[in-house]
């Protein structure tokens, strides 16, 4: 069984993150605000090479970029 989102280069976690975001956004106004707070993530991360810390990047953006890269690979 092949999944459409897998073919598009999404990981499972990314897939459920997108799905949960959609659900949260379709909630009623008062509940939506409370729910959307649970979906926030302010993580930053850095790659380490040979014991040196690399650039600090925003994790959400990096994940999006990685997904786009995988998607490009999957479609070609």
């Amino acid at each position, binding site marked *: *069984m*092949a*999944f459409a989102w*897998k073919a598009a280069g999404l*990981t*499972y*976690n*990314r897939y*459920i*993150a997108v799905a*949960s975001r959609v659900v949260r956004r379709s909630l009623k106004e008062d509940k939506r605000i409370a729910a959307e707070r*649970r*979906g*926030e*993530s*302010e*993580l*930053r*991360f*850095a*790659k*380490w090479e*040979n*014991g*040196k*810390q690399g650039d*600090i990047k925003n*994790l*959400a953006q*990096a*994940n999006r970029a*990685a997904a786009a890269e995988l998607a490009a690979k999957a479609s070609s």
Partner: protein
Amino acid sequence: MMISRAARPALRAGVAAAARPATLNASSAAGYATLREIEDRLKSIRNIEKITKTMKIVASTKLTRAQKAMNDSKIYGQTSNTVFEKAETKPLEADGKKTLIVVASSDKGLCGGIHSGLTRKVRKMMLEKPDSDLVVIGEKCKAQLSRSNNKNIVFSFAGVGKDVPTFADASAIADQVCLLPSDYASVQIVYNKWANAQSYDATVVEAFSEEAIAQSPNFAAFEIDDEVLANLREYSLANALYWALAEGHACEQSARQNAMDNASKNAGDMIQRFTILFNRTRQAVITGELVEIITGATASEG
């Protein structure tokens, strides 16, 4: 105070004229100085006490929320682990493959030895498996581990610990970990396990690799397609991370509450001691002044 200080040079001259021993003069001069010093010290300790008290209150309000999140996530994580228990999944014996150690700490300090406990545990694990890779979540453990094991760190995450960790955090981290090029025999998540409000210990929770899941004895009972297996692995990793982060967060808040409670108590003790010392010194200074005035008066009369 002001009058006595203004009168001091004249007094000192009078004392010198009376040919008193020099040592007495020096000690009384020191007495004046320490009175001022003690006062300043007292003021700063009082301020510190105020700060630690406030931090304690903040920590205890946060703790109730963190505990709630921890209990929820615990059920969540345990349910997700039931699959592996039923399948009797065991970590693969390392056959040349590396182990990945994920350390779940946080960015903030001032909470006792909670982060160094984790670091110590990780260092012990690194001694057994020196080629393991490290993913460090939180600035505190990053700072500690980068001193000893900086060659092993592949990722570090920052920005956790401000609030109760969300599943979005955990899944984002899990995503990055899954994207790592090397294939790991097992992923071990080190976090602080909540024992009770006073104690916690660094514990390891295992997130299994695909192969480990596929090779588990009761795996056939679940009828999982091979393709779906990767999803399960990613999802269970995110689950385990979420659990570890939430429990670690609750432990941190409770540790901070304790640490700040102790700090306030110590500050209270110090304030008491310094108040007594202050009063005693003040009295000594007054007595000293009286003695000097009286002796001066009697000397000039005679």
